[in-house]
């Protein structure tokens, strides 16, 4: 279940990245696509709740899983050499995940809340709105850039273990696994790096 919600989140992440990268190449196209995403009823009323549910489900299940697993070992070892048999990222999913959660609160406050207030509470028309301008102003603040960059580093760490872990969890371990591992590593590094690039691009280029 953890894995299914994670697959969904990874797919969403890819889509989110594709749109964001547009903001680097062309403000106009970015505005048009954002307008479409912000007003299309299918996206607004079906996909958005599904996404929110997916996120909440993933972290709630993550917490439950962590608690159960802690209960399974009541006395800790006096000496435990975890690094001898597993990676740091695999042992610290809960912490990298928690940081992402904190970041998401911050991130929603930056982009999602203003958008919802503007659209549904003040009832403003969305036609011709300059989403691109909003992004650029947001990224002027160096503290915000720092938080975003750090969050993407944590995301990379989370995915470095999570991507292939999800395949193992649904029982897919076969002759493609080796190739997939490489792809997973690439995905886990390139996507967050791409996001970092976008944030820095807007910071230094406005």
């Amino acid at each position: 279940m953890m894995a299914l919600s994670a697959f969904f989140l990874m797919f969403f992440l890819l889509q989110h990245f594709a749109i964001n990268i547009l903001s680097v190449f062309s403000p106009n196209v970015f505005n048009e696509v954002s307008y479409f995403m912000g007003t299309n009823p299918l996206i607004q009323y079906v996909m958005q709740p599904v996404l929110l549910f997916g996120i909440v489900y993933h972290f709630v299940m993550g917490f439950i899983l962590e608690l159960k697993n802690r209960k399974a070992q009541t006395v800790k070892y006096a000496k435990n050499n975890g690094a001898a048999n597993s990676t740091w990222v695999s042992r610290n999913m809960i912490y990298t995940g928690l940081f992402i959660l904190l970041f998401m609160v911050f991130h929603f406050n930056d982009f999602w809340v203003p958008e919802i207030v503007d659209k549904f509470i003040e009832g403003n028309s969305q036609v011709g709105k300059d989403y691109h301008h909003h992004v650029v102003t947001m990224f002027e603040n160096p503290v915000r850039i720092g938080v975003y960059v750090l969050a993407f580093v944590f995301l990379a760490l989370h995915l470095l273990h999570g991507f292939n872990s999800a395949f193992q969890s649904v029982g897919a371990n076969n002759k493609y696994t080796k190739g997939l591992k490489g792809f997973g590593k690439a995905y886990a590094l390139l996507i967050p790096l791409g996001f970092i690039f976008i944030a820095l691009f807007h910071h230094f280029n406005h």
Partner: protein
Amino acid sequence: MNLTLKIWRQKGPQDKGQMVDYKVTDISEHMSFLEMMDVLNEQLINSGDEPVAFDHDCREGICGMCSMYINGEAHGPDRGVTTCQLHMRMFKDGDTITIEPFRAAAFPVIKDLVVDRMAFERIQQAGGYISINTSGNTQDGNAIPISKHAADEAMDAATCIGCGACVASCKNSSAMLFVGAKVSQYALLPQGQVEAADRVKNMVAQMDLEGFGNCTNTGACEIECPKGISLENIARMNREFLKANVKG
């Protein structure tokens, strides 16, 4: 060589227990780890102290009894061996060695380094078998065609000795490598098909009931398993479990 040992001493299941320091001298590098423990116990008995209780039986890596967590790893620092097969040449003169029982809520300590692994037994009883007719006209296993590949994988899974190192090494105390191996050894063979769905469901249910944690794929078990049981067996169990539940 001379060594300092830090060993977990616990009088019984209810006792709180603590680490106690001991010194042993003149240990040969050719000794096995258990022989070194024998030296210590002889020393303790001669001085009128209570010897350290630890599990062992075959002393050749096939029974899976010798559970010890040595310097932070199940069965010590060597790979692909049990504690009884661990040589003292893995250590240096003057080393301090920490020795603890396998830790898991489902493996309660009985005394010192001895833990109760009956939970594994109950998981086996929940489904780790095939039902056959023993009336005397049982079909010859060799008459059933099985591919070399499946036979090899089933044999590999069947080499699990139920030692519990996977549980001991896992940060979640998950038993999924053990259960994965036991499910796989039948799931791969035609004889195991008839009861396949019930087997995986019942064994997983018993595993959860015993209080083992859930696998988060850190891979520690595969590295520490003395028999080299592969993570593929966990994936196969997950697959069998999904299949069994989708079919209802």
